[in-house]
């Protein structure tokens, strides 16, 4: 998929946005949305809420595997580069050590392993979150501005197979939402 294309639903509606007053309300609402079988939805909070991933039924992120592969690539690359330079391309006697003096190569192998693992973590996270994304339909909501302050939200996208503009909104209201909004694309 193209890196910079917006990953948002097509059609007249983006989805519904529901605001909750407390983390407890949000937590229990998430459990109910999860149990109702929705798949394309998200929760938005000003700070991390412990256990929310479980309440939402989120699967574990594949990010650790990206980090592992990136880290091993960096370590292997660092070691291979030094091996090629010292033992193959430019064999020079340094400090009376053998051409292939592996202990001398460990620090750079380690550093490149760490560097690539960090790249894997940061850019892998960007990729998995489909960032950078310069605009998002959620920002059209005035009330959503409080997501960085004191309000807690659930958004359900219109491309969710279970989505229905009125029924989904009513469900969220029944879960204790303070307000429910239907957002345009």
């Amino acid at each position, binding site marked *: 998929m193209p890196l910079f294309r917006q990953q948002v639903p097509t059609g007249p509606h983006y989805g519904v946005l529901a605001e909750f007053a407390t983390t407890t309300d949000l937590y229990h609402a998430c459990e109910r949305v999860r149990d109702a079988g929705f798949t394309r939805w998200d929760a938005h909070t000003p700070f991390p809420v412990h256990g929310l991933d479980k309440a939402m039924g989120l699967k574990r992120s594949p990010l650790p595997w990206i980090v592992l592969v990136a880290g091993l690539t960096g370590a292997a690359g660092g070691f291979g580069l030094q091996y090629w330079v010292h033992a193959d391309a430019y064999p020079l006697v340094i400090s009376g050590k053998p051409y292939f003096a592996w*202990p001398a190569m460990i620090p750079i192998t380690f550093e490149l392993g760490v560097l690539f693992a960090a790249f894997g973590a940061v850019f892998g996270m960007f990729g998995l979150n489909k960032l950078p994304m310069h605009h998002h339909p959620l920002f059209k909501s005035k009330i959503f501005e409080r997501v960085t302050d004191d309000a807690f939200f659930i958004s359900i996208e219109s491309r969710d197979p279970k989505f229905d503009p009125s029924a989904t909104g009513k469900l969220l209201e029944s879960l204790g939402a303070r307000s429910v909004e239907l957002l345009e694309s």
Partner: protein
Amino acid sequence: MTAEHDLVALRPDQVTIPPGHPWNRLPLVGAGCAVLGAVVCALLGAGNPKQFFFSWLVSFLFFLSLAIGALFFVLIQYAAQGGWSVVLRRIGETTFATVPVMAALFVPLLFGLNHLFSWSVPGAAEHDALLQWKAPFLNVPFFLIRAVLYFGIWSFIALMYYRGSRGQDVTGDPAVSARLRKFAGPGIIVMALTATFASVDWIMSLTPHWYSTMFGVYFFAGSFIGFIALLSVVAAAMRGAGLLDTVITAEHLQDVGKMLFAFTVFWTYIAFSQFFLIWYGNLPEETTWYRARMEGSWLTISILLMAGHFAVPFFYLMGRAVKRRNTTLAVGGVWLLAMHFVDLYWQVMPTLHPEGFRPSVLDVAAFMAIGGCFVAAASWLLRRQALVPMRDPRLAESLAFENV
């Protein structure tokens, strides 16, 4: 810290070893091992005192390092006000409460100083300029004074924290936690200094010409990972034996596993740095120690350490699921305990057998004798107390702990 700790009510049967439980027999099993090991040591050691003293030193260092690692662990938890670890703290407290026993087990070594430490042989320094220069530090009276100091200080800290925590079980006084926290910072500094000097005295001075300025950290790294490995084994074994199985959760195991993983890397970092600087500088009085370990069968042990103390546990402990199950975590812990023993063996034994790796029955006998005393003392203490600090102000936080 809130008043919510008043709401926690652990029933006594949840946190003690119930009557008739197999763990009640552990002190007897330990004592049996100790007697058997001691008898074999006496029978075979008489004919080969040098081997006996070296074997005894390795096993003594192994179990002592577990107690020292436990002291560091508990002091760090107090200093950092760690909440997650409260349900595991008693395992650490019980481990370091064996320090006075270890002091008693140090005594046999005093009869073999001349066998162990070439600098202690009368007249050793006469034709040796380096030993003459080091004599103000490396002489028998000062060596003994230092040993008394180490054990005095370690016992003092160990008993202070053990008694404080046990006392809090009865009184529930949160001031105990505050007082122990206040002493934890200075305690860590004192522990770092004494453990460093002890490792110089009892391991580094086996090769009296040699020195490494980071040897103390190396000893600490080994001790700490040794204790974390023990902690993971004991915590998993307790859960497996139906003790604390509702109190210690997979979340706690995972955190212990994370520490095990982290300190695998830390030990490797320190062990490699020590080797790397000496290898690169290539000065004869520094390289001699590694030279002895890079020849013949000692090289095999060196490679075993690189693979077994780093590569294998590094990849084994990386995943999340491994750290959350009793058996898989315990396998990692037993493996690293074994590697910690190999590490100490590799540090001590080439002095006795420079020609190569020579295992001995006395190695096993000394391990059984000292390990038996250690297990007997620790499990005897475990039986007489709650298995968690029942009224610690952070117990509720620890019980509810979840990894994010």
